[in-house]
């Protein structure tokens, strides 16, 4: 599998697109959910948090299998015809990233100084402004959660391979391309793709450190 530079660029762009879409969707759902779990007290909350922490360790091949069975032609969502499309990978990666975004958001909100809520309340803030103030105080921890979710999605291979099918020009991502190149003995290409992925991952980790550095201020 030798690939021209244009194709490699296409693979990198698709990987980024999938990772970004999955991260945005997971965070749109996960941050409000995590905020709710970290903010409110209700019966069963601890059990939910425990389940959520278990979901963090969900094997990606299991997620891949579940989404495959859902989207397969004879599956419940087979009519959508999504299997082996990049959107299918996004769905699988959202399932993977959702527990991360939710759990890290819940932890970020729980870690906010209890004085923040009381201070906002005593200064006359309503429920929404108080919640917004708490989120603002936790913004670096929340952002770190987003970046962790992004990094996880970007580097995932199992589910992407199972529901994306590694179709050339369509669902081939950096990780699935590396897997294929390695199996075909094209180590030069595998290493080159790996370096691109590493560069992206490095960017992510630098971003986390920058954010955490800010968080100390």
């Amino acid at each position, binding site marked *: 599998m030798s690939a021209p530079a244009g194709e490699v660029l296409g693979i990198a762009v698709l990987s980024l697109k999938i990772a970004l879409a999955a991260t945005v969707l997971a965070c749109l759902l996960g941050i409000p959910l995590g905020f709710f779990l970290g903010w409110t007290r209700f019966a069963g909350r601890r059990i939910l948090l425990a389940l959520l922490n278990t979901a963090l360790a969900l094997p990606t091949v299991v997620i891949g299998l579940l989404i495959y069975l859902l989207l397969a032609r004879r599956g419940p969502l087979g009519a959508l015809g999504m299997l082996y499309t990049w959107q299918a990978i996004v769905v699988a990666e959202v399932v993977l990233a959702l527990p991360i975004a939710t759990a890290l958001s819940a932890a970020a909100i729980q870690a906010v100084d209890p004085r923040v809520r009381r*201070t906002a309340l005593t200064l*006359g*803030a309503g429920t929404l*402004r108080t919640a917004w103030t708490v989120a603002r*105080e936790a913004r670096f921890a929340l952002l770190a959660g987003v970046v962790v979710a992004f990094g996880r999605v970007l580097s995932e291979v199992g589910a992407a391979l199972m529901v994306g099918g590694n179709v050339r020009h369509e669902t081939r991502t950096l990780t699935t391309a590396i897997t294929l190149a390695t199996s075909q003995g094209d180590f030069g290409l595998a290493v080159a793709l790996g370096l691109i992925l590493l560069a992206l991952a490095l960017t992510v980790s630098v971003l986390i450190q920058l954010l955490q550095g800010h968080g100390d201020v």
Partner: protein
Amino acid sequence: MATFEVTALRQQFGGRAALSLDALAVREGARLAVVGPNGAGKSTLLRLLAFVDTPLSGSIALEGRPVASAADRRQARQRVTLVEQRPYLFRGTVLGNVAYGLRARGVNAVEAGERAAAALARLRLRELAGRDARALSDGEIQRVAVARALAVEPVALLLDEPVSGADRAAQHALFEALAAEQARRPLTIVFASHLLEDAYRWADDLLALHQGRASPVTPENLFRVDLPGGAPMQTVNVGPLALDVMTDRQGPATLAIPPDEIVLSTEALHSSARNVLRGRIVRVAEHGAAMRVTLDAGIELVALITRKSFEEMGLAVGGTAFASFKSVAIRVF
């Protein structure tokens, strides 16, 4: 009209009673000091009066209107503001912090900024306006938090240990600013303190709390002890000292030595008083025509004596004095 009227107020945390107050009325424009040792329920009471916590039972009326529902409390919070013992400043500038309450009330950004700057100026903090709120000293944080609370012009300001950790000049500046605010407009102030000097120097009314309840005696010279029992005249260990006390009780108890029952002298008295302690004078505060003298005798004792006696004996901070009191003067509860 009373700013606060409290009836049968109860609060508990983790099943433990934290506050049990049968009645309290705080009149408009009052300066009420809530005094008591750590854990007496001062902060609990302030958070209930600030309507940021919900009581287990009982009621609080604000300006004659009962505050019962969550909606009532939300409205009441528009008129009462609490400054916590360790105030929290939000990320951002000092000015942004002080404008927060105004913005929460729908005041536009320009006007909120102007009014916040004016509040800072009243606390003599104008130069801090543009500073990062996270880069302030503890004393500055305290004063900015007071400016932030005053910016919304509340009918009542609640302060939890407002001068803890502040030096004397900062304490004085804060109380001056609060007095100026009260001269400017109607404002009820309730402040908690574990230092009685603050209360006597500055408050015009006093609520003493002890283990969550209004205490019948002022809470100075309060000591937790373990009474040995056995005889009506008991010798009990208080810190490094042994005091004689008349009581039939046995086991854990609190001793209170009323400050006006303590006789100060420059030499040891030979009298009927069973307890004579030698100590060093560590603080002196004026209390109307009287003087409150704090003596470090291994335990801190506060004695109340006339100014005349104080001057005639030539007492001063750093000097030595003897405190004498009868065993029957010690109250046990």
